């Protein structure tokens, strides 16, 4: 989809529209590197401990392709609706930098693994279709530490090649995005898809998912592009949003002041809330691309592609819609529940174990989400686990425990684990639903709180809550709250 096809969106009152294209680099969740057998678990490894002659770029070494990396890239391309051409190859991208051991990066230039896909998502209830130009495969570089943290002040830099050679997917989006918000949503959705299909861990903080943007402005209605500025160093969704907002405003200001924009690369400085010029893009590198002679090309036939396609799980979009129709959930709730595949799987496991979908959804979205955040543990990997949670919710739904008890148990068992049924039994936490027993407590409470009773009978609805609270307390928190409510109203009605 070309930029001309996306509908124009004026920056209100200015006569200009922003044109944004995003380039996302995603490390692949393979076990070994792209062209050698070093592990990809390099994060937190001691510097240069995760290397071998090949990824160190030592003389005489040669690359050998990682089969799984190719398959994961094809899987990604298929999830994004791309075409897989029958012939693809690697190329050398030649430039000098200390984090690039061979003095060239093995990447793909003119015949990438895939092209022509799209990512569809919603922003403010409005559908946005962003084209995907291409998805290709390459190798990651090493990392640099600058003595003093700022590259232009350092007298020396330190090179760690642990990351060099990790398989990296480059996903180039068409310049179809028009607002900072659309850009943010694009990255969010793309990340979600990549995590769903298990090719990337979604961590922008650790750098396994990186995003650069190209931004330009042009007069609404024009089909020409304005001066393009590249924005780098956006390390979170928030950063993407804020950096682009800033940059669009900056460019607008320049144009409205009658100035000219410089084609350049600018870095987002999070701590200062602005973008800063890094180097003029005019001195563009001449990468002298040529086909990689050390690697035979790839011919991926229809059978191969279909075999990979069969590995695609239900994608987030489709899953969300199914949750709405199959479980009767609202779009909002369905979106929350399908945000991550793990969570969606957990929900379906619980709903499948006999718990009603509505109850499961409420709890998953409410208390379970709260605890998952607090403990940094999704329920499937929590101490309680999906099975434990299912058991707990079944206890609640059957009336064996009341809501309060269920919540307390959830809090207690989430991280530590435990058997809810056994605990309810052993501690006598079972819900008190015996009307006669409750009636006695209710009568006691009524007798002990004449003023509150009077308030309620005088029209203050909230007063009932206090009475319910007192009954709950008196029953050790185990009373069936609805029954208590009913009994109180009956007694106080007359």
């Amino acid at each position: 989809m070309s930029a001309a096809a996306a509908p124009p969106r004026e920056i209100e009152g200015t006569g200009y529209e922003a044109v944004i294209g995003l380039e996302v680099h995603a490390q692949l969740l393979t076990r070994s590197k792209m062209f050698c057998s070093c592990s990809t678990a390099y994060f937190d490894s001691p510097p240069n401990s995760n290397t071998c002659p090949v990824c160190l770029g030592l003389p005489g070494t040669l690359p050998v392709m990682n089969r799984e990396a190719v398959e994961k890239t094809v899987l990604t391309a298929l999830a994004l609706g791309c075409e897989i051409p029958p012939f693809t190859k690697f190329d050398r991208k030649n430039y000098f930098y200390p984090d690039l051991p061979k003095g060239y990066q093995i990447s793909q230039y003119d015949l990438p693994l895939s092209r022509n896909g799209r990512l569809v998502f919603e922003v403010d209830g409005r559908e946005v279709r962003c084209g995907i130009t291409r998805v290709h495969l390459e190798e990651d570089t090493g990392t640099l530490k600058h003595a003093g943290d700022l590259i232009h002040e350092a007298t020396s830099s330190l090179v760690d090649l642990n990351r060099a050679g990790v398989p990296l997917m480059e996903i180039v989006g068409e310049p179809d995005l028009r607002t900072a918000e659309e850009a943010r949503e694009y990255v969010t959705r793309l990340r979600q898809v990549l995590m769903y299909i298990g090719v990337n861990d979604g961590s922008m903080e650790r750098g396994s998912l990186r995003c650069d943007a190209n931004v330009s402005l042009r007069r609404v209605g024009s089909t020409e592009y304005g001066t393009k500025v590249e924005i780098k160093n956006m390390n979170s969704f928030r950063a993407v949003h804020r950096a682009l907002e800033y940059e669009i405003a900056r460019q607008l200001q320049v144009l409205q002041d009658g100035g000219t924009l410089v084609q350049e690369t600018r870095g987002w400085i999070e701590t200062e809330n602005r973008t800063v010029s890094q180097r003029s893009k005019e001195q563009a590198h001449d990468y002298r691309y040529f086909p990689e002679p050390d690697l035979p090309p790839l011919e991926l036939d229809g059978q191969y592609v279909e075999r990979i396609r069969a590995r695609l799980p239900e994608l987030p979009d489709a899953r969300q819609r199914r949750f709405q129709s199959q479980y009767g959930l609202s779009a909002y709730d369905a979106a929350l529940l399908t945000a991550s595949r793990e969570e969606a799987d957990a929900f379906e496991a619980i709903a499948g174990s006999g718990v009603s979908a509505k109850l499961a959804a409420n709890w998953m979205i409410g208390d379970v989400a709260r605890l998952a955040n607090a403990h940094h543990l999704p329920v499937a990997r929590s101490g309680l686990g999906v099975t434990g949670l299912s058991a707990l919710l079944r206890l609640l739904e059957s009336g064996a425990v009341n809501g309060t008890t269920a919540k307390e148990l959830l809090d207690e068992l989430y991280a530590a684990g435990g058997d809810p049924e056994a605990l309810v039994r052993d501690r006598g936490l079972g819900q008190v639903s015996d009307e006669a027993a409750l009636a006695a407590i209710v009568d006691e409470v009524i007798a002990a709180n004449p003023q509150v009773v009077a308030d309620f009978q005088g029209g203050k609805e909230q007063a009932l809550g206090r009475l319910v609270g007192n009954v709950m307390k008196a029953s050790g928190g185990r009373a069936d709250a609805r029954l208590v409510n009913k009994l109180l109203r009956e007694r106080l009605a007359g």
Partner: protein
Amino acid sequence: MTLSRDDVAHVAMLARLGLSDAEMEQYRTQLDAILDAIGKLNEVDTSAVAETAQVGGLVNVWREDEPRESIGAERALANAPERDGPYFRVAAIQE
């Protein structure tokens, strides 16, 4: 074909080769002559022909995704001309 001094300077920079003025001029004349001789290529009709990027005719050569032990930092750094603990050290990258 005449290669200018600027052409040579540009290429030398792309290749990160520091050359003296005398070398620049020497290479300029030599490269000029070589490129002239290479012009012979244009005499061959290649209109109906594809490039040979790979002599072998091989396709789809890959390995299974099995990690193996690395050689360790000490061996990785053993040939380093400049190091700082477990890092390779380079001079200031002035951007």
